[in-house]
C-alpha cells in the first residue's frame, strides 16, 4: 500500500480564528440537519458558475464570539473528480473554484452508525492538508443501538480532532464552536493511504475503526418491521397508492383554495393601493404591472410550501426511498427511475413546485429528464382554458351512459395526450442526449426517523426564498414587459385600447404563422399574454371582445364560436396541451438547472411539438367536418 506523509500547512497567523470553513459529508450523514442547526436562518443559497450544484453559505459564532462563514458543499462519498458534485467539492477545498476563496478549514460530517464506509471520505479530506474536524453524527442512534466508539483513540489515529455529536439533540456541538475559534494548535503531520484504491482506503478505514474500538450498532428493529410492511408484496404498493393520493389531494384540494384566497387578497389590496393613486399610467403600472407581477410570483408559494412540507416529511422519515423502490419498476419502463414519480405527479397540480421537487433525484440526467417532461402533465392552469373551449365547442352528450359525457371524455383525452407526450419525450431524451450509462438506480435506504419540525421549517423557508429571489425576479421582469406591451404606445397620455397596443401588433405579427392552425390575431394576442399564466388567455379574449370573461363566460363562448371553427378549437386545445405557455415554469427551470440552455431548449421543443400537433389536429378535424 502506498502511504505518504501529508504535512499540515502552517498557518502564518495560526492564533486567529478561521474565517471560512467548508462542511462536507456523505449523503445520509445528517450533514444538512447539522448545518441547519449550526447556522439556523442565517444562510443563503448559491450556485457555482456553470454547474447545477448548489451550495449554502451560513454564519455561526465561534467560542470567542467571532463570526465564521460555513460553506455547505453537496453530499459526497469520495473526492472523485468524475462526478460533478465531487469535482465541485474538490475544487472548493483546493481553492480553485472561481469566486470562492480556499476555505481555512474543513468539517467532515460522518454517520457514526456507518463509520467503516464513511471514514473513507474523512481519510481523503484529511489528506488534502487543511485543518480538519471530524464529526461523528447521530451519536444518539449509535448509543441507542448498542454501538460505540472511542473518540480520543480515533482522534489519535486520524491525528485531527474528532467529536461525537448529534445534530438532532444538539449533543456535543460545542466541539464545533471550539474548533472554529482555532483553540486547538495545528496538529502534527499525519500518514494516510491517499494514493490507494477505494479498496485500500477502505481497509485503512476498517483499521482505524478497529483501533478506536468502533462497535457498529444493530439495525433499528423498527426499520426492519416498517420495511416488512412498506415493502411488502401486497401492502407496499397499496400504502404507496394511499400516500400518493394523499399527496395529490393535499396539493390540489388544499393548495388550490389557498392559492385562490391569496389571489383574492392580492387583488383587493391592489385595488385598495390603486385608489390612493391618481388615475393614470402610474396607477396602472402599480396595480397591473408591479402588483400583478408580485401576485403572479407569490401565488405559487402555497403549492410550493405544501409540496415541500409533504416531501420533507416523506424524505426525512425515510419513506421517500421506499416509495422510489416501489415506483421504480413502472418508471424504469420509460427510462426514468422511481424518484421521478412524486415530482411528475405533483406536476398535475403545477409544474413550478414539481420542478423544484426534482432535487430529490440524485442522478443529474434523470433529474434533467424529469424537469423537461414535467410541463407536459396537465397542470391546473390549463383547466380553465380547456373548460371554456370544450364548453363552447363540444355539445354535452352521454357517451357511456351516465358515466362519461362527451365533454368529460374530451377533458380526459387531453390529460392522456399530455401524459403520452411526456412518456414519448422521456423515451427520446433517455435514448439520445440524456442517455444515462453512468447513473443506474442505486439508492441508499436510510433508517426510518421522526422528521423534526425545525428541519422541515428550515427547508420550507429555504425553498420559498430560493423561489422568490431567483425565479421570482425573472417572473417579475416578464410581467412588467407584458404590462408595458399592453399599455403602449400611449395616446394623449392615456394607455391604448388593447386593440391598438404593442400586444395587438404582436398578435397581428404572428397571425401569418398561426393562421394554418385556424387562429386569428386575437387568439395570437391571447397566446402572447398567456405566457404570464395559461389561464390569462381567457381574460385577454374577453377584453378583446369587450366581454367580462368572469361574469359573462357564456357570451365569451359565443364570441369564441365566431372566432374559431371546430377544427381551430381542437387545434387550440392541442396547442395548450403541449406548448410551454408559462414563464414561471421557464424561470424555475432556469433556476434549477442554473443555465438558460435547458429552458430555451425546452421552450423551443414544446412550442414546435405544440405547433406541429395543433396543425395536424386542425387538418384532420377540418377534413372530417367539411
Amino acid at each position, binding site marked *: 500500500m502506498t502511504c505518504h506523509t501529508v504535512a499540515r500547512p502552517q498557518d502564518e497567523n495560526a492564533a486567529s480564528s478561521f474565517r471560512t470553513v467548508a462542511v462536507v459529508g456523505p449523503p445520509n450523514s445528517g450533514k444538512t440537519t447539522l448545518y441547519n442547526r449550526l447556522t439556523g436562518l442565517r444562510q443563503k443559497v448559491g450556485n457555482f458558475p456553470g454547474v447545477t450544484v448548489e451550495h449554502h453559505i451560513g454564519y455561526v459564532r465561534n467560542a470567542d464570539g467571532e463570526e465564521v462563514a460555513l460553506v455547505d458543499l453537496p453530499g459526497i462519498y469520495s473526492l472523485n473528480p468524475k462526478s460533478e458534485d465531487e469535482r465541485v467539492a474538490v475544487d472548493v477545498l483546493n481553492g480553485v473554484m472561481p469566486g470562492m476563496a480556499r476555505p481555512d478549514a474543513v468539517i467532515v460530517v460522518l454517520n457514526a452508525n456507518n463509520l467503516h464506509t464513511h471514514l473513507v471520505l474523512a481519510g481523503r479530506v484529511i489528506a488534502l492538508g487543511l485543518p480538519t474536524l471530524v464529526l461523528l453524527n447521530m451519536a444518539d442512534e449509535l448509543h441507542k443501538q448498542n454501538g460505540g466508539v472511542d473518540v480520543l483513540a480515533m482522534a489519535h489515529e486520524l491525528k485531527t480532532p474528532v467529536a461525537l455529536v448529534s445534530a438532532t439533540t444538539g449533543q456535543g456541538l460545542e466541539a464545533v464552536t471550539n474548533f472554529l475559534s482555532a483553540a486547538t494548535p495545528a496538529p502534527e503531520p499525519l500518514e494516510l493511504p491517499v494514493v490507494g484504491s477505494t479498496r485500500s482506503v477502505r481497509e485503512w478505514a476498517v483499521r482505524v475503526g478497529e483501533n478506536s474500538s468502533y462497535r457498529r450498532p444493530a439495525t433499528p428493529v423498527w426499520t426492519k418491521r416498517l420495511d416488512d410492511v412498506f*415493502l411488502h408484496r401486497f401492502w407496499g404498493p397499496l400504502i404507496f397508492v394511499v400516500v400518493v393520493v394523499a399527496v395529490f389531494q393535499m396539493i390540489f384540494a388544499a393548495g388550490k383554495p389557498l392559492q385562490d384566497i391569496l389571489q383574492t387578497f392580492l387583488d383587493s389590496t391592489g385595488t385598495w393601493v390603486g385608489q390612493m393613486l391618481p388615475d393614470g399610467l402610474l396607477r396602472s403600472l402599480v396595480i397591473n404591472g408591479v402588483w400583478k407581477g408580485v401576485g403572479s410570483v407569490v401565488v405559487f408559494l402555497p403549492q410550493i410550501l405544501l409540496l415541500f412540507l409533504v416531501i420533507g416529511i416523506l424524505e426525512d422519515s425515510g419513506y421517500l426511498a421506499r416509495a422510489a423502490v416501489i415506483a421504480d419498476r413502472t418508471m424504469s419502463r420509460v427510462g426514468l427511475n422511481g424518484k421521478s414519480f412524486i415530482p411528475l405527479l405533483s406536476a398535475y397540480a403545477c409544474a413550478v413546485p414539481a420542478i423544484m421537487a426534482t432535487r430529490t433525484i440524485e442522478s443529474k440526467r434523470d433529474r434533467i429528464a424529469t424537469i423537461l417532461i414535467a410541463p407536459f402533465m396537465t397542470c391546473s392552469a390549463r383547466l380553465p382554458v380547456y373548460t371554456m373551449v370544450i364548453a363552447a365547442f363540444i355539445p354535452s352528450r352521454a357517451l357511456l351512459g351516465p358515466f362519461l359525457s362527451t365533454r368529460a371524455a374530451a377533458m380526459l383525452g387531453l390529460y392522456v395526450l399530455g401524459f403520452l407526450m411526456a412518456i414519448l419525450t422521456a423515451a427520446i431524451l433517455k435514448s439520445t442526449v440524456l442517455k444515462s450509462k*453512468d447513473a443506474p438506480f442505486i*439508492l441508499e435506504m436510510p433508517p426510518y426517523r421522526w422528521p423534526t419540525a425545525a428541519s422541515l421549517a428550515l427547508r420550507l423557508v429555504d425553498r420559498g426564498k430560493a423561489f422568490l429571489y431567483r425565479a421570482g425576479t425573472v417572473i417579475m421582469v416578464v410581467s412588467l414587459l407584458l404590462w408595458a406591451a399592453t399599455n403602449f404606445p400611449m395616446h394623449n397620455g392615456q394607455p391604448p385600447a388593447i386593440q391598438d397596443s404593442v400586444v395587438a401588433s404582436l398578435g397581428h405579427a404572428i397571425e401569418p404563422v398561426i393562421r394554418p392552425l385556424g387562429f386569428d390575431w386575437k387568439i395570437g394576442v391571447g397566446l402572447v399574454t398567456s405566457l404570464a399564466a395559461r389561464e390569462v388567455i381567457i381574460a385577454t379574449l374577453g377584453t378583446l371582445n369587450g366581454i367580462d370573461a368572469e361574469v359573462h363566460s357564456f357570451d365569451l363562448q359565443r364570441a369564441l364560436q365566431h372566432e374559431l371553427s371546430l377544427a381551430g378549437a381542437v387545434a387550440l386545445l392541442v396547442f395548450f396541451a403541449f406548448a410551454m405557455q408559462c414563464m414561471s415554469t421557464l424561470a424555475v427551470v432556469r433556476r434549477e438547472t442554473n443555465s438558460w440552455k435547458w429552458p430555451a431548449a425546452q421552450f423551443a421543443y414544446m412550442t414546435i411539438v405544440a405547433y406541429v400537433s395543433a396543425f395536424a389536429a386542425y387538418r384532420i378535424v377540418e377534413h372530417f367536418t367539411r
Partner: protein
Amino acid sequence: MGKGVRIEMELKMIFNFIFGRKQYRHHNSDALADLRVGERAIVQDLELDHPIAEHLMNLGFVPGLEVSVERSGPGGDPRVYRVEGTEVAIRRELSRHIHVSLVGAPAFGD
C-alpha cells in the same frame, strides 16, 4: 484451473442440485442477482464501468466484504441489499454484473 477449485465447483453443483438452485450457476462466482432473499455472499468483483463501480464501492460493495439480500421490492425488482451498516436498493440489471461467492465458499480467507 486448480484441482481445489474444481472440487469446490462440483460440490457447489451438487449443493445447488439438492437445494434446487439453477443449473447455469456453475461458475466459481455467482451474480448478486442470482442470490435469494436471506442469502449472504462475499463480493468478488464488479464488472461495471468505473464511475458505477466506484459509486457502489463507496456504498460498501468492496471486494472481500459480505453482502446479504435483505428483501425484494414488490415485483422482485429492485432488491434491497445490506453491506455492513448500509442498505442499498439496486436493480437486477446492475446486480447481474456484481460477482459474488456464497458464504461458505469465500474466495479468500475472511
